[in-house]
């Protein structure tokens, strides 16, 4: 794990030595050495490996700043020459732009280093065993694994490094007529037993899925939203700025009414960004320390936001080390009081929704959100899972779902990691209970 760490330190030192006295600079590093195995029909559809090392370099001078992002090659002569060229290009840009009153760099020095010694998980070597478990299944998905690195350094003397050997398996299993059950398995230490147990557990749900769809008509339904469905709703809201202070000030947040206290959520809702675990890097892309725990909503009332240092400067508030997008890293929704064994009995007659898909806002200002049910979703009759139902569109407000219509949250919560791999593998996620909700509006 230490090859990239010492290399990045060397490169950063080289660049900072090029600076004039009035200049400052920050460098961030996002690297990975990843194996990707894409599967269809339980066989390999595409297989490959990607080594990338992305550096983001910001030059700061005379209250101005500009950024260059580039791929480190790992060839020291080439990379040093590139940096020598870049410093001139960045200086030329700085001369042409106005002042930026909001940009800042961390002053505090920090030597956070997490660089564990792992025996890397040999995904390719293990594949035959993993795929042999899938004999007889119709299976599609992706296995991704390999070390991930995040780091920042600046000319004030800051250096921080975070490394993790991380795998994320994300897949679906299918009945003969293509009804699907979704599963994920992720973490730092792969266990064949845990993987096998997940596959084995799915057989019962697949049997239940293997019935004709029950058609539903539009209307209001009492539903149980499994932890993943709860995550789908809250993560979608977060992606559209629900917890962003900047979005709030710009009147673009789906939770604007919550933030101005003109609306409230149910008192059972206590939601935070909790990055106390070592699953994610504790610093943002400029090296500011992320606050370990930020309480967004406490008993239904909004208390805090994601605040990037730039936003903090603009509005004279305290930051919590958020990235520029001001999205939470690890959402934590507090558990409730509904025991797992009581979910179906309490629901009685209704719908069991495992996942939601393609969420977006019909009316963002009023937190009105739409999306589709997807994967294994079941009719519940007399407190028992009955049959799968055909996909339905819902369109309802988060104020109803997590407000007046929220009946209960479960005691048991599930840790769920994001499976995004746009540009680079993602390290974020959350922990969520399930939610019993009455009167969810299904529209199509």
């Amino acid at each position, binding site marked *: 794990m230490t090859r990239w760490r010492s290399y990045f330190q060397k490169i950063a030192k080289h660049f900072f030595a090029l600076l004039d006295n009035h200049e400052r600079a920050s460098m961030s590093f996002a690297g990975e050495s*990843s194996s990707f195995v*894409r*599967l*269809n029909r339980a*066989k*390999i*559809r*595409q*297989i*490959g*490996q*990607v*080594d*990338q090392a992305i550096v*983001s370099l910001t030059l700061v001078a005379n209250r101005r*700043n*500009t*950024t*260059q992002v*580039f*791929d480190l*090659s790992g*060839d020291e002569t080439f990379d040093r020459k590139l940096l020598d060229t870049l410093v001139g290009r960045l200086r030329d840009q700085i001369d*042409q*732009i*106005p002042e930026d*009153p909001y940009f800042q760099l961390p002053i505090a020095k920090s030597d956070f280093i997490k660089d564990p010694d792992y025996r890397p998980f040999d995904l*390719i070597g293990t*594949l*035959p065993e993993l795929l042999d478990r899938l004999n007889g299944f119709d299976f599609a*998905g*992706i296995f991704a694994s390999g070390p991930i690195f995040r780091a920042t350094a600046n000319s004030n003397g800051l250096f921080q490094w975070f490394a993790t050997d991380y795998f994320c398996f*994300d897949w*679906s299993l299918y009945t003969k007529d293509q009804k*699907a059950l979704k599963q994920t398995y992720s973490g730092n230490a792969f266990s064949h037993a845990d993987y096998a147990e997940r596959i084995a557990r799915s057989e019962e749900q697949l049997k239940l899925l293997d019935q004709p769809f029950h058609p539903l008509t539009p209307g209001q339904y009492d539903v149980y939203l499994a932890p993943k469905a709860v995550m789908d709703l809250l993560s979608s809201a977060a992606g559209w700025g629900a917890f962003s202070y900047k979005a709030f000030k710009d*009147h*673009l947040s789906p939770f604007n*009414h919550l933030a101005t206290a003109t609306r409230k959520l149910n008192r059972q809702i206590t939601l935070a960004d909790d990055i106390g675990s070592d699953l994610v890097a504790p610093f943002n892309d400029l090296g500011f320390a992320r606050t370990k725990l930020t309480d967004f909503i406490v008993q239904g009332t909004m208390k805090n936001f994601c605040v990037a240092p*730039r936003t903090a400067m603009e509005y004279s508030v305290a930051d919590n080390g958020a990235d*520029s997008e001001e999205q939470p890293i690890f959402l934590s929704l507090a558990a409730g009081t509904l025991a797992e064994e009581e979910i179906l009995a309490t629901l009685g007659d209704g719908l069991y929704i495992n996942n939601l*898909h*393609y969420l*977006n*806002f*019909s*009316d*963002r*200002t009023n937190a*009105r959100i*739409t999306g*589709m049910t*997807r994967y294994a979703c079941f009719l519940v009759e007399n407190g028992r899972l009955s049959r799968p139902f055909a*996909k339905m*569109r819902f*369109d309802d407000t988060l104020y109803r779902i997590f407000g007046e219509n929220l009946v209960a949250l479960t005691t048991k919560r599930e840790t769920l990691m994001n499976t*995004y*791999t*746009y*540009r680079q593998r993602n390290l974020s996620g959350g922990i969520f209970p399930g939610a019993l909700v009455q009167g969810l509006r299904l529209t*199509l």
Partner: protein
Amino acid sequence: MRDATYWMNILEELPIECDWASLRYVKDEIRTIDMRNKIIEQLSTESNRGVMIQVIVDGSMAYTATSDCSKDGITTAARRCCMVARQIKDYQLLRYNPSQQPITSGSFRTKVSHHWEDMPLRQKVALLKDLSGELSVDPLIGLTTTSLWGIATSQIIVSTNGTRVEQKIDIVSIDLAATAFRGSESQTRTFGGLRGNSFQGGLEVLDRYRLNEEARRIGRDAVQLLDAEQCPIGNYDVLLYPDQMMLQIHESIGHALEIDRILGDERNYAGTSFVRLEDFGSLRYGSPLLNITFDPTVEGEMASYGWDDEALPARKEYLIKDGLLINGLGGLTSQVRSGLKGVANTRASSWNRPPIDRMANLNCEPGTSSLDELLSSIDRGIIMKSNKSWSIDDYREKFQFGCEWAQLVEKGKPTAILKNPNYRGITIPFWQKLKALGDRSTFSIHGTPFCGKGEPSQSIRVGHASPIALFSDVSVFGGAR
């Protein structure tokens, strides 16, 4: 930049044993100037540069991608690639035939008359600041954003069976937005929805518009929307402008016709399709007015190119002709798997992702009705412009879209402005209710950099051109509740 000969030499000198290999070198420069309330929020240049090697060993294909473009770096990557291909060949879904890989050569270059570098940075910044001022037409405008991106992509593909393709693509994307707010109400109006004004070309793209006038209009629209009525609930004729047709085509035609989706590759993530292989040639997708083309030859459209990333030469092809589905969006691998004709559409977002079936330019061919004719045919309808929300199910059937701006049409006359217009429907019945299509005078080209798909995931640039289109009996509704 090193040319195809250089990379061919690298490839040919690789000490590897395989039945076929390709090297795809990509250099992407993305220049971003984003301004918020007249202050630069982001000024960055992103230079992505790397190589992807693909090999076939005894019918088994694998890829390795690296940002180390030195001879040693590529050699290491290629060796690993061959080793993996060999190691897992018994577990592959497909068997690849080297003789089916194309042998082609040539080059493609976006026509540019005013290069990004020709305008100094300070002038670009001044332009965006000036437009920010123009957006602020009223004290109720609380937020303005202006943005200018310049993208230059160079790609070289060489292969051991003789392919040599060089492409250089330049893109300019301009975006303007104004948000008006009063009390708890806010409304945003933009320049064409999802960065819809993104084109191949240089800065001459900006000369097509009277940008100051557009900025003032956008600001006025945002303020006007604050006081507008909610879009009513009910079934109406709906007249969609091209910057909403962009999403309608994209979600409920484009993705539905990707052959790799139909074959099940995307089931775990983006989904599959209601379209089956046997539907090609027989499924009546829409009204006889509907003609959809895959067209990478349109000058200036976002996803025009000469060859796809499997080096297939790119041509215009009809996918839907007079309402009948005749062809799908599938490149070489999908064509072999499905037996369909397909198109040259296999693309990767950059060097670090493998190519898969993508949309490129997907266009609705114009009809014959003028805007006046379209309007006068409407007894009770709603005009909708500029997408702001999109959602569809994993089979590409049940969709819902929201737009920024709408206007009621009563007995052929546009009347009240409406806010929060949304509509929902199901793909095939919706396209079969296409009642009239605008002529070339209503036709415009749009594009967006944000089409997401794949495992691992990748976001790619697509183009969508369309006339104004009239649909009958569409379920519409407004916001709140």
